[in-house]
């Protein structure tokens, strides 16, 4: 009897940390090597990328097999879930007898190749969403770190905060930050403020399709080259910097909701 009460109490205590829609990690979170919407040679990374060492891969949630494509370079499996989501597992070796319904956490195959990819498609919103928003939170992560800001001036790049004034006008600003690697929180929103006014912001939580291309919702649609540029560096394009002296602040929110910020004292001179 006392055992039953203890068990019920434990379940009640744990209930808030086990959200019903969170699903389960399809692989060990420590095997994560790249995060959603990061740059890759193919454009935005649409998935979480896990290191492959032949480990077991499990289903994110209960669902139904919609598609299996077997290929020497790694199979693709798509599961359909009741709540309008579809989960995609690319680069795995799908269990030979898999068909029909799958329960949450069921073994669906083994990781193949050097890495494998996990995507979640929101069929009702017509977008691919960051799986981290639907997975149980990771704990014990270090905060992402803002390394430096660079202002693009013609063919040059000037480090913000080096004492030189920045000419006023619309400027591309490049952000260098760490985060997304193993043990560090993945940045989900980056905002730029000039003298307290928000002059730029990007959210990395959803990709959608627009005119035959995949764009970041951000919340305004942005193509890959508007987010990362040709060189793959993260940038705020065309930030309006009015002349004056003040603080340029970058705020980064990571997957755990933690916000880190860094501020530079900057002089923006009039004229180009």
């Amino acid at each position: 009897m006392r055992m039953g009460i203890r068990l019920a109490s434990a379940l009640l205590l744990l209930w808030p940390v086990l959200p019903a829609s969170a699903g389960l990690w399809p692989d060990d979170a420590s095997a994560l090597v790249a995060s959603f919407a990061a740059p890759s040679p193919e454009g935005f990374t649409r998935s979480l990328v896990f290191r492959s060492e032949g480990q077991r891969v499990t289903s994110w949630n209960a669902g139904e097999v919609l598609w299996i494509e077997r290929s020497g370079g790694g199979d693709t499996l798509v599961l359909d879930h009741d709540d309008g989501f579809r989960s995609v597992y690319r680069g795995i070796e799908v269990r030979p007898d898999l068909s029909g319904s799958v329960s949450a956490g069921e073994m669906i195959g083994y990781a193949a190749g050097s890495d494998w990819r996990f995507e979640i498609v929101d069929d009702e919103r017509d977008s691919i969403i960051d799986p981290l928003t639907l997975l149980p939170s990771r704990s014990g992560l270090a905060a992402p770190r803002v390394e430096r800001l660079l202002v693009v001036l013609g063919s040059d790049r000037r480090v913000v905060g080096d004492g030189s004034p920045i000419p006023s006008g619309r400027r591309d600003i490049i952000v260098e930050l760490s985060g997304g690697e193993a043990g560090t929180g993945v940045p989900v929103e980056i905002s730029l403020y000039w003298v307290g006014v928000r002059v730029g912001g990007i959210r990395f939580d959803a990709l959608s399709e627009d005119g035959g291309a995949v764009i970041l919702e951000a919340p305004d649609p942005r193509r890959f080259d508007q987010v990362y540029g040709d060189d793959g560096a993260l940038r705020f394009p065309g930030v309006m910097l009015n002349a004056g002296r003040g603080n340029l602040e970058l705020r980064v929110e990571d997957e755990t909701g933690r916000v880190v910020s860094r501020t530079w004292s900057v002089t923006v001179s009039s004229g180009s």
Partner: protein
Amino acid sequence: MKKRGVFLIGLIVISVYYFLFPRGSGPEFVLQPIAVTPFGDDAPTDGRISASAVAVRGGERIGFLDDEGALAAYFRADALAAGDGWIALRGPEGVDIRDADGRLRARLNRPMQPETHRGRLYLGHRAAGRLLGVDPRNGAVLWEREYLVPITVVDGSADRTLIGLLDGRIQLVDDDGRVLLDYQPGGSRLEAVYGGALSADGRRIAIVSGLDPQRFILLEERKNGYRPVSHHSTETDYRRRVAVGFVRSDAEVLYERSDGVADVALESFEVRRLEAPGRPVAWMDGPLDGFLTILGSDGDEAALRMVASNDRMMFHSILPSRVSGIQSVGDKLLIVDENRIAILESAVR
């Protein structure tokens, strides 16, 4: 004595019957082996490949056969495609488009999978929803499309490309990248396109889509665009790619079914069942007019079956399971596996 008389009379009657009404043997279908050409280890390219050389694929190898059936050139790559006088090979850096004699035409810095449909070249990463239309003459990218979901179907003909998607949509794209059709059939509990084909003139589209029920849908180009003209439940629940194709000069559509191959007549939309040997691997018109040849496999062995226009079976043969493709060149039938090309001549005598 009486018994012997009856037997003698019977024999005379049978002899007279056969002399008076001889059984017409009729024309006979003959399939005769001519040559077996092995894919060598080295490319025998000597720079003199005729324009009529035929590209033949066997797994990771493509050879060009000359008029005598000899291998005039040979290429090997983990991903490759070929058309008239050209070949596209994927390497570590991207895709090379070469003449049949090996000369480089163009290099595309995209490490994608080349595929060809009716001589048209595409580079794709289907699982990641990416596809490029490429001009094989010079490597120019005609258009590029990127989707949120995996691409399940690609077919091309005339100046059009059919793209089927796992969210249940099909798109028809022209050579300028314009979307001529964006269609989602609906009508099933789960939407997904599992198979599809475009007719040679680009005016008809056949798809197998959805789950519960899985349906066959035929669209036809009318004055006001493409319209569905026929549909029915396929009574299947495949969760993988389903073979669909137009045959008999676009007069019929075949699609894979668990009990063989369904044959839809486009005049009447009548659906017939064709007996197929295992899961269909390939089908084609030929090698003779009105013939339909189906290669099937059940994993342990492959089988080749030919039917005439009246559905009469003309030929059936069990083949080794490693046979991966068939092709017709004039009245010749090519049977291909990883290591060799068998050339057979067909005739009605």
